[in-house]
């Protein structure tokens, strides 16, 4: 047998699917992948601060055990080291949720998505940095230190899954789970130049995942490519008896549908809301992306998304009220243990009356139906810039430091992502260029409910003709 063994220096540059396939072919091992990841983290995470905790020795022991598993018993992700936002419970393991309040929290049970990933042979190196209780869009964390964007250390990595975006971008891990209530997967994916997917509301089990908003929370991966996301979604999606809200809709083979062919696919380009006040650099990247999709055979169709005033208004109400409800007890007893930007938000949200919350919830279904009738009767997907502005700096968005204008800058980030959570649609964000500061620009693709495969297919087709998803920040592992 003549097998080309991959040298350690190239291992961290492999995508998730490339790494899993390399292990399956015997070109590398779980131990080699883990050693390469730990070396990259040791060399670079002092600058990025993407990990809250790391268990290198235990990961190496797990990897060695996995390397002894017979090939016939191996899963789709066998031997690939990952790490996840520090809010996925694993029995007995730390799960800080990025907070002081849960600094020593060790749950007694394991999240279904973690069990599913482990059943396919992956394992975690540690817990990744995140916004405190998943509640900011920037990556600030007063308790464990701010996470930094590997593309420019002064810049926001995006939140709330800040460590997930940064660790994947810096080539510390091949993929990571994040969570998305108002953009918390797609924002760090966009700002860190990686690919991330939020599935249809109810698509992925939330059992064993720290709650923020019952109606809008979603679990999903950040990875190097649409194909990576497809493989992870196929593993984690599907009904879970432990989460009664999870859908029984069958899970398709997302990866098998990635054929690069966009002929006959109609792509909606919003005429309203999503392109309002978009930065020229972002717009240039977005328009160039449209050209690539057209080159792949897609037809661009201008669309008007109805009820956007209602979507934008109601979307904020639902997640704020649900978050404030979850945190009310801690707010009564230990409000000072939260960062200012968070306890202030939680406090204010207690002032939103129940009638406004019920109004927002009760109109969600009818609004989705109206959007489907107006948009998805005309197009297969619609696209938008993930973020309207260029990457902001950590300083310019630091509410806790009292930076003038920080609140506005803070809120601007999620203008294009939060509405999608209210609609409940699947959405994939991927990189499509760099701005004039050399920071990544992202676009997002939305499909009908349970149309994750179609959104991934569009992004995969784009990535076949472009190299943005393979670009990496300088100064980190090759």
């Amino acid at each position, binding site marked *: 047998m003549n097998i080309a063994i991959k040298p350690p220096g190239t291992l961290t540059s492999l995508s998730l699917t490339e790494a899993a396939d390399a292990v399956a072919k015997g070109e590398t091992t779980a131990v080699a992948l883990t050693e390469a990841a730990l070396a990259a983290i040791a060399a670079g995470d002092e600058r990025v601060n993407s990990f809250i905790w790391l268990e290198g020795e235990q990961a190496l022991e797990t990897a060695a055990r996995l390397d002894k598993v017979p090939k016939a018993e191996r899963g789709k992700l066998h031997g690939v080291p990952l790490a996840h936002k520090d809010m996925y419970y694993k029995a007995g393991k730390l799960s800080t949720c990025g907070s002081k309040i849960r600094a020593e929290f060790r749950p007694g049970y394991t999240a279904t998505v973690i069990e599913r990933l482990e059943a396919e042979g992956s394992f975690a190196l540690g817990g990744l940095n995140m916004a405190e209780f998943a509640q900011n869009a920037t990556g600030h964390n007063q308790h464990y230190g701010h996470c930094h964007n590997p593309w420019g250390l002064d810049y926001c990595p995006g939140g709330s899954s800040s460590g997930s975006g940064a660790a994947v971008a810096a080539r510390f891990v091949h993929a990571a789970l994040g969570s998305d209530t108002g953009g918390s997967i797609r924002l760090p994916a966009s700002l860190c130049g990686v690919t991330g997917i939020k599935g*249809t*509301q*109810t698509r992925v089990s939330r059992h064993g995942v720290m709650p923020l908003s019952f*109606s809008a929370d979603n679990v999903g991966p950040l990875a190097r490519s649409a194909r990576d996301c497809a493989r992870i979604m196929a593993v984690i999606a599907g009904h879970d008896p432990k989460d009664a809200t999870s*859908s029984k*809709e069958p899970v*398709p083979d997302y990866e098998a549908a990635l054929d690069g062919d966009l002929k006959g696919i109609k792509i909606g380009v919003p005429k309203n809301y999503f392109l309002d006040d978009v930065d020229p650099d972002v717009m240039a990247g977005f328009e160039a992306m449209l050209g690539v999709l057209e080159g792949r055979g897609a037809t661009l169709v201008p669309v008007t998304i109805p*009820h956007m*005033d*209602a979507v*934008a*208004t109601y979307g*904020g*109400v639902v997640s704020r009220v649900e978050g*404030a409800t979850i945190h*009310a007890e801690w*707010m*009564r007893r230990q*409000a*000072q243990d*939260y960062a*200012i*930007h968070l*306890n*202030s*938000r939680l*406090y*204010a949200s*207690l*002032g*939103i*009356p129940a009638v*406004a919350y019920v*109004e927002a*919830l*009760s*109109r*969600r*279904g*009818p*609004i*989705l*139906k109206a959007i*489907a009738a107006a948009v*998805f009767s005309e197009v297969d997907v619609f696209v938008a810039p993930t973020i309207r502005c260029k990457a902001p700096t950590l300083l310019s968005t630091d*509410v806790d430091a009292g930076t003038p204008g920080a*609140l506005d800058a803070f809120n601007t980030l999620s203008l294009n992502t939060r509405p999608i959570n209210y609609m*409940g649609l699947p959405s994939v964000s991927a990189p499509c260029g760099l701005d004039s500061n050399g920071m990544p620009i992202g676009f997002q693709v939305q*499909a*009908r*409910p*349970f*149309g*994750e*495969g*179609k959104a991934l297919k569009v992004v995969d087709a784009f990535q076949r003709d472009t190299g943005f998803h393979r670009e990496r920040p300088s100064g980190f592992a090759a």
Partner: protein
Amino acid sequence: MSMDIKALVKEQAEAWSGVVPPNAVSEELAAGFASLMAGLSALRGQLAFEDEPSSFEAALQATKEPNP
């Protein structure tokens, strides 16, 4: 609208939830609800409760991708 929104939020948070303003930023955010209230006000009369009981999960099914 001539009302003290900070006072309104303070009264509601304290009376219904037992939570007091933790800092000045929290009151600034509460004052910012003027725009949220205006947004909700502007929506009055635009949408009816056409599905009773409304079910978002049913809407997801009704609008789902036919060929996933």
